[in-house]
């Protein structure tokens, strides 16, 4: 994880002049026939792909108001052009949000609008030909669906919606991306993105229990498939496998231990992440959500809590209730059953940060903050949490709660520059189904705006720890930090900070 030639960054960010075709290319690896078919998509590009694509576009825009309205409403004001981290990092004009949308919009105009049918040149309407499809594949896989552009658009035009629609169209004609589609196949079969089977999961959890016991002398449990537990914990599977994620998992376990609330993980639904969102497919996304609903019912839990994962939290918070009726207001059988089963005193689902924050508010956790005194911490707002969800049901809660949790565990907390945090946060560069080795150049370049901000904070405040609540952010940062002359180990989970400072009491009922 070292890099011999790290990029020396200035602490400010300049908007680059456009460099045409700077990121031209073939895009990421395509999904194999087997992978495609597993999700119900054609195994390879179908013969009449143009027609299939146009039909799918028509269907998509008739099912999603966002797509229809966004295609019409853009006035090409250019306000979003310098807001995308991929444009800022690559200077390729097709990475400007509006230009990215225009890849889709120009085809829409050509096939669906009067002006585009009769005056294509005047309004920039284009046919969907091989070149256009190549551009779609390449540039819609250079969008992390972070929604930063939408914050700055006067009409709230969200390029993420367009890139989801485009990926859906591409999947339907048989041009899917390997990384997300392969992973979705594993979730549907095994239950998590890793493809980690139950015995391996069980073994890993036991290993972690031993580790905590060795470190602290306290029996902290990481229960798996325990029926009638109070809480079902659904967390990104990276928390079981990767560094630094796993220390966050240990943090959750310690918090649960201290809270006295019984909890369990599920081997059937051992994944919070839902890549169905990235590929814009409603059914696939719903299937992921249904697994979790089934686990909740089977394990007869009273609450569902989601671990540190950015887009998972967006899906859980904003979509789960729609997809599966897990919150209140649903009227189908399962929803009603869930409403009876789940504890209505709590929002369903809840974020782990909300759970920990609540306990802190109620003074139920004690911390030895000096344990984190070697750290000067800053917080990276993950896009999907910042711009697609809320926490605590208070305005700006998604910004307030994680910071309060960090501050409860650390003495030194500083912010990065204002235009790079909260709703203006820059994506880590690896979100939206792009966290794959075949896109590493893009990932390094896309991280640049965040790295600038971090560099500034390092120089001004001596920041040495970057905390995040997203599995993708954590993996992406540990990979790209060395490219920018940072220590890859500076990225931590928020619950790792909690884990290091929390004071464990032996008295809890988890004694064995």
């Amino acid at each position, binding site marked *: 994880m070292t890099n011999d030639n790290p990029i020396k960054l200035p602490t400010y960010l300049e908007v680059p002049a456009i460099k045409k075709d700077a990121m031209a290319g073939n895009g990421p690896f395509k999904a194999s026939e087997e992978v495609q078919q597993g999700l119900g998509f054609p195994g390879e590009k179908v013969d009449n792909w143009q027609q299939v694509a146009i039909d799918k576009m028509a269907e998509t825009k008739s099912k999603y108001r966002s797509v229809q309205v966004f295609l019409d409403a853009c006035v090409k004001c250019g306000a979003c052009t310098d807001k995308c981290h991929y444009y800022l990092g690559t200077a390729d004009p097709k990475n400007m949000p509006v230009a990215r949308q225009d890849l889709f919009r120009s085809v829409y105009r050509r096939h669906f609008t009067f002006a585009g049918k009769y005056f294509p040149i005047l309004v920039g309407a284009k046919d969907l030909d091989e070149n256009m499809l190549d551009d779609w594949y390449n540039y819609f896989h250079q969008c992390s669906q972070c929604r930063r552009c939408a914050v700055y658009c006067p009409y709230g035009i969200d390029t993420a919606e367009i890139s989801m629609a485009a990926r859906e169209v591409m999947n339907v004609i048989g041009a899917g991306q390997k990384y997300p589609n392969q992973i979705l196949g594993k979730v549907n079969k095994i239950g998590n993105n890793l493809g980690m089977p139950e*015995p391996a999961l069980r073994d890993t959890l036991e290993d972690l229990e031993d*580790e905590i016991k060795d470190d602290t002398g306290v029996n902290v449990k990481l229960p798996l498939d325990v029926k009638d537990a109070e809480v079902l914990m659904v967390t990104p599977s*990276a928390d079981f496998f*990767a560094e630094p994620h796993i220390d966050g998992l240990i943090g959750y376990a310690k918090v649960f231990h201290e809270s006295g609330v019984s909890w369990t993980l599920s081997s059937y639904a051992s994944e919070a992440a839902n890549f169905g969102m990235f590929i814009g497919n409603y059914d696939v996304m719903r299937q992921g959500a249904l697994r979790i609903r089934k686990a909740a019912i089977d394990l007869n839990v009273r609450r569902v809590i989601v671990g540190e994962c950015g887009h998972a939290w967006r899906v859980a918070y904003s979509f789960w209730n729609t997809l599966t009726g897990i919150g209140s207001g649903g009227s189908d059988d399962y929803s009603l059953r869930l409403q009876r089963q789940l504890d209505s005193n709590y929002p369903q689902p809840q974020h782990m940060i909300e759970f920990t924050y609540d306990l802190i508010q109620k003074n139920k956790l004690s911390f030895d903050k000096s344990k984190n005194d070697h750290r000067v911490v800053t917080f990276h707002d993950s896009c999907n949490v910042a711009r697609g969800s809320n926490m605590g049901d208070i305005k700006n809660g998604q910004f307030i709660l994680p910071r309060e949790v960090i501050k409860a565990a650390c003495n030194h907390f500083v912010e990065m520059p204002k235009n790079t945090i909260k709703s203006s946060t820059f994506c880590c560069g690896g979100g939206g189904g792009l966290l794959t080795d075949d896109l590493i150049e893009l990932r390094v370049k896309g991280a640049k705006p965040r790295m600038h901000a971090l560099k500034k904070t390092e120089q001004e405040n001596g920041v040495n720890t970057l905390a995040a609540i997203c599995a993708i952010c954590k993996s992406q940062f540990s990979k790209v930090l060395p490219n920018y002359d940072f220590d890859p180990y500076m990225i931590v989970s928020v619950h790792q900070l909690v884990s290091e400072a929390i004071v464990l009491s032996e008295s809890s009922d988890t004694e064995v």
Partner: protein
Amino acid sequence: MAEILGAEVDEEGYLLKVSDWTPEIANAMSEEDGIELSPEHWEVINFLQEYYKEYEFAPAVRVLTKAIAKKLGNDKGNSRYLYSLFPYGPAKQGCRFAGLPKPTGCV
């Protein structure tokens, strides 16, 4: 499909079939990456394979580091050391040399 010493690999260089693996393949792969396999490398590779045989899955990095700590001493049982052996990551590069499938997901 690309091949290495007659065994099929995917576009990222991972063996398609775990059973195709031979030590020569590990050597050839590491050579391509500019790494000479030391006994420490082999400890990691062997552990990965043993674990995989039992669980049909690669061990979590934490599990791996602890196993290595037991075998090679505590000073080597940490992720920094493993990264010095496998600069592209002990999980990914290690699995590739060991002939195991690539760990996917947000890792």
